């Protein structure tokens, strides 16, 4: 009955995944933390959960979801604050935790979180005005959602499929936002004419991965357009692959050109690497479907793009169909 008693803190893992968890593990292992640190931290998180629940209640009693949201928010802030105060150094983080001033650490994290959320909101509004935003459907949906973000409450307005305001994670969503920004910076570096032509002709199934496939083909065959003809698709299949593997000189050429484009357009190293990984995955995808009619795998006028997951779903569906027939 007591709202504090109803909150199961074991659901909030303070494990090695988090910086706080790593610092606690290190401190406990080498006896660098007072023995009551963990209890004190859990007590602190309970208090923050209650505070949040009180401010955001929608009925007489505080809802458990409100308490949990408060604890989660405090934990994220604590993690971000501790990282910042210790500059990512675990030994310094253990010292910080040992002082027991959790609130100062949380406030530090809260400020960083606030500015990151504000960056997401403003940045989303800005990115939505770019023509490339409408091109990437998944990213476009996220940007539209984040544009309604309220940094003070860490929530955004519900969209058509949702009933209530949704929590935005200052850490995870920020990472996704930066990734989206990097992808759009990369797309912006593609010659406008080629991109506009693709944008005008392809109205369905637009995705970053699909666009990369068209780009890989264009780079492999030195095309100036992003929309391949059926002859070019056949040429791509016959000249760039051998025994289901992309020819090494073609792979090197494509990756070299991609790297050059990425270095010029995406400033942040980790996000550059993320895009490069997707490029490699799409090359692997081509190798997987090599020998089939490739037309279905590109963004083309009037066609819906196919993803690797769709392909997998088709395989599973075929297997299931076979099983039914066998029975």
């Amino acid at each position, binding site marked *: *009955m007591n709202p504090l008693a*109803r909150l199961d803190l074991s659901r909030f893992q303070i494990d090695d995944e988090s910086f706080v968890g790593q610092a606690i593990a290190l401190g406990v292992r080498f006896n660098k933390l007072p023995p009551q640190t963990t209890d004190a931290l859990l007590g602190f998180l309970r208090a923050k959960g209650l505070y949040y629940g009180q401010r955001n*209640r929608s*009925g007489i*009693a505080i809802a458990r979801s409100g308490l949990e949201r408060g604890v989660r928010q405090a934990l994220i802030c604590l993690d971000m604050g501790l990282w910042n105060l210790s500059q990512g150094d675990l030994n310094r983080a253990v010292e910080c935790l040992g002082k027991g001033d959790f609130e100062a650490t949380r406030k530090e994290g809260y400020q960083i979180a606030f500015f990151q959320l504000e960056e997401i909101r403003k940045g989303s509004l800005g990115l939505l005005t770019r023509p490339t935003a409408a091109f990437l459907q998944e990213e476009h949906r996220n940007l539209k959602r984040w544009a309604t973000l309220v940094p003070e409450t860490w929530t955004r307005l519900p969209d058509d499929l949702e009933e209530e305001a949704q929590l935005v994670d200052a850490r995870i969503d920020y990472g996704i936002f930066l990734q989206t920004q990097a992808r759009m910076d990369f797309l912006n570096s593609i010659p406008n004419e080629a991109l506009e032509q693709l944008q005008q002709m392809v109205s369905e199934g637009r995705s970053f991965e699909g666009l990369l496939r068209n780009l890989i083909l264009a780079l492999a065959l030195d095309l100036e357009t992003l929309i391949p003809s059926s002859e070019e698709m056949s040429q791509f299949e016959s000249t760039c692959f051998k025994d289901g593997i992309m020819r090494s000189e073609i792979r090197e050429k494509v990756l070299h050109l991609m790297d050059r484009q990425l270095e010029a357009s995406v400033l942040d190293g980790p996000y550059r690497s993320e895009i490069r990984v997707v490029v490699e995955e799409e090359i692997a995808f081509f190798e997987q479907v090599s020998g089939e009619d490739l037309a279905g795998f590109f963004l083309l006028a009037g066609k819906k793009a196919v993803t690797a997951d769709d392909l997998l779903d088709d395989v599973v569906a075929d297997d299931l169909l076979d099983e039914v027939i066998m029975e």
Partner: protein
Amino acid sequence: MNQQPFGGEGEVTCSVCEIVISMARLQVIPDAKLCVSCQGKVERGLLDLNAHLFDSSGIQAEPEPQPLEVQEDRLVVGAWSGGFMEVAEQSGQMRALLREGKREEAQALVQALPIEAQAALVVVDEDPEEALSITGMDGKGNPGYHTQVVSLLPTELLTGLIAYDGEEKRFNTRLIQAMTPGAFSRTVAETLDPVDNAEARAAVTWEWLEALAELRDANKRAELLRSVEPELLEEALTTRIHHFNLNKTITSVEIDGVNWGVDMFRVFSEDSAVGPLPSKFIEDEKVGEVMDSLYEAAPDVMSAMVRGAWERQFDGWEDLE
């Protein structure tokens, strides 16, 4: 504040202006101490009842006890305090007796403690509701909540016990019945204090009204309703007033051969007698049920609440014009 029949036999005069309170009002609120007009002034904050009644006589209203607080490792109520370890030990003893089926001994153990210590035990115990039900248990072993203990419980413990099933909107009405007006108004106010969002405030206040409407005892309903600040009550209707069709014409009056329509808003005017039940003109059935229950208990309070919420809708319209 005694009721003094200064007028004729059976007549009751208003404690403020001393005019005779109408029989219609007394039939609905037998213990009414103020006329409709003065009651309205009190509710709108135009009249400080305590200052008016007590200043000249020197009588002071009894202060409401402050609820239990946690101060470092101690539970504190006024001058009383108990260590966590000590209170947890008493809770453990009570639990051991209950496990052995010795309810009478558990009752004796709990009820022998000072009221403050009983409240502390409820706060610390693993099942606060069960512990609280022993504080007011009678000689026959019937569980009950001790009013004084309830008054000392912290707000968030009380709210968790009252709205024990928030999703299904089921309320512990016996616990509300055990609350003093002071404890009730304090709890309502403290649930609202930290909430900034107007919609959320309306939802919280409305849920309090829903809980209150479920009380069987109309006098208690009225008593607790009156303990809450009128402005807070009005907030409950801010998101629901659109369900109220107050412009609806309910009757017409002939004056000098001309028929004049009387709209529903008149029913809630300060000088109106008790009118039809609110559900007659509220579109939402559930809202109507809650309003009826509370209107039956305290029509003057509810009329003022409806008036206030209705008028709030138009706040700021002058600026727009």
